[in-house]
């Protein structure tokens, strides 16, 4: 297995810079996920690592060796494509055999290795089938099998689950995670689906317009978003963001902010923000408590009952909409007034530039991280 290092990678098409300097060190056996909205450059970055796109500037190192100008096949990578890209005229066996045959591996060894991989992926019964005769999930498995047989140093996945239906996606997600645990291969995985990112990643790289917004473990990104973009992007339903004004800096590590109708003090380290400065308050839907004595009031517009949880869309007196997540047994109806409490220890504060202000308390799961 291998380490991968990106040193200030850049990609320029004509005059437009698509990737604006990405640096990242990927450890052995690590599962890294690139996420971001479409057009953020995550697939381009993956294809640059794969060798399918030229690198305009910067260095790409695999196991400490610069591979910018190495042919894709010689980089020791294997890639699973979004469309699977199976060879339609070859059966499953031949699909998996192709790279081994090109590498000049002896027949007996090829047979042995494909047999092993087929057993792991439960593909034995389908070795004679053509891709056209397989279901989506089976094709997906063949694509993964084709990557595994090469015994690559690094696995690359380009949105591999996006063509599957929801149930199968959930199942393949678990299979991929357990496969990664078993093979222990360094993996780079591109997705726009944050559930995939949160559940599978050791570390997530959030990309936006060719720039890395934040790199961290899933919980770091969730509980300590570095800026407004990450705060908005991670989490579903997304974080509530309210424009507020700094009211006063309270000396013992917290800031009081207010809008016309509410006032919250947020545990934050010394910021140097002046009273009256604009800022953004962020709070996740699950951190708003329904509380008859609460200081925040609003009117329920819509309630979405998902069974396990209920999402209340609440209009605040100043017209802002927020989402409150509460238990599945919540009985509140639309058009009824409601009082809430913001759990202050879970509030986030972003300055006028959208950067998060360092907090004075931390999430228990992140202690020591």
């Amino acid at each position, binding site marked *: 297995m291998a380490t991968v290092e990106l040193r200030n990678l850049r990609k320029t098409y004509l005059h437009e810079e698509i990737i604006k300097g990405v640096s990242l060190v990927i450890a052995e056996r690590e599962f890294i996920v690139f996420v971001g909205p479409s057009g953020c450059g995550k697939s381009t970055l993956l294809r640059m690592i*794969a*060798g*399918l796109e030229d690198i305009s500037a910067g260095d790409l190192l695999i196991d400490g060796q610069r591979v910018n100008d190495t042919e*894709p*096949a*010689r980089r020791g*990578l*294997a*890639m699973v*494509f*979004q*469309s699977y*890209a*199976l*060879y*339609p*005229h070859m059966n499953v066996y031949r699909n998996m055999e*192709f*790279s081994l045959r*090109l*590498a000049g591996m002896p027949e007996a060894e090829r047979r042995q290795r494909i047999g092993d991989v087929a057993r792991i992926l439960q593909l034995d019964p389908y070795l004679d089938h*053509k891709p*056209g005769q397989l279901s989506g999930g089976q094709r997906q498995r063949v694509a993964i099998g*084709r990557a595994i047989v*090469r015994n690559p140093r690094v696995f690359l996945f380009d949105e591999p689950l996006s063509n599957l239906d929801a149930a199968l996606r959930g199942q393949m997600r678990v299979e991929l995670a357990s496969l990664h645990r078993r093979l222990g291969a360094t993996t780079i995985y591109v997705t726009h689906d944050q559930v995939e990112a949160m559940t599978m990643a050791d570390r997530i790289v959030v990309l936006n317009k060719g720039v890395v917004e934040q790199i961290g473990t899933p919980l770091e990104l969730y509980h300590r978003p570095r800026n407004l973009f990450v705060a908005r992007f991670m989490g579903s339903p997304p974080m509530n963001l309210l424009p507020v004004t700094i009211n006063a800096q309270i000396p013992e590590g917290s800031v009081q902010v207010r809008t016309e109708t509410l006032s919250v003090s947020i545990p934050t380290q010394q910021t140097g923000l002046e009273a009256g400065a604009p800022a953004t308050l962020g709070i996740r839907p699950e951190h708003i408590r329904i509380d008859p004595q609460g200081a925040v009031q609003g009117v329920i517009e819509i309630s979405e009952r998902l069974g396990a949880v209920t999402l209340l869309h609440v209009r605040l007196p100043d017209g802002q909409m927020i989402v409150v997540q509460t238990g599945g047994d919540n009985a509140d109806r639309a058009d009824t007034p409601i009082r809430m409490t913001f759990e202050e220890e879970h509030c986030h504060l972003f300055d006028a530039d959208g950067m998060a202000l360092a907090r004075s308390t931390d999430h228990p799961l992140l202690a020591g991280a």
Partner: protein
Amino acid sequence: MDKVAVHTSVMARPAASAARSRRLQGFVLQSPAIVLLLVWSVVPLLMTLWYSVRNYNLVDPTQQGFAGINNYWYLLTDPDFMTSLENTAILVGGVLAISVGLGTLLAVLYNEEFAGRGIARILVISPFFIMPTVAALLWKNLMLHPIYGVYSAMMRAVGLTPVDWLSRYPLATLVMIVAWEWLPFAVLILLTAIQSLDTEQKEAARMDGAGMVAQFINITLPHLSRAITVVIMIETIFLLTVFAEISVTTAGGPGVASTNLAFLIYSRALLQFDVGGASAGGVVAIVVANVVAAFLLRAVARNLET
């Protein structure tokens, strides 16, 4: 016109007779097309069959009557006939080999990005729009003529003696001319086919370690196999009946060196005025075409499965 009226009257009658009347209606409506087809294809076929067993020569009207299999006998024992069959096979095979082989390579080439690709594509396709007689005349007089031709001028320019292509290598030159006419068709079909090739497949092959040649053999060619079969089938149908190019350039000569089956039938009927013999040739041509078509269709059907 009276759709509603017809419909209600049909509804009123018992089911069996309604069905019969519906069938009759369909028959009546189809009959003009069927009659046309009969007149235009079946009647000539029957007349050809009839003439092929008659003594019928326009030069000698006194010679008449039933010939039996004599027309066929003369044709099949005529050395010219075997030569014309060979020539037909060489013409079809040669043109197919050049147009499909070169066409595949050109299609791959024109699928790549390069400066002026649009213009190059138009240029490679344009010969297809030139009618066969004109194309043949262009080659005969403009390009290959031993005195005025462009190639002759080029050869003289470097001190070589010009070759009289059409009399020295008549069949090969014809193959070249007809291939020039049909290459655009192959390129056109194969280019559209190649454009439907999933780029991720080629990238996957690249990651699997396939170089340009390996990609072409393992990914591109299998993807093109159906289109190639279609090109072969359509071209064969037209190449079996090549006539204008021969008539304009060599008139089948020298001797019968460039006479194919179609031109042989023409020369029997309209140069020797032997309608009976020409009709026998026509019947043989029908048989040959059907044998070829049967093989082709079977090959195509196998290839179009899955």
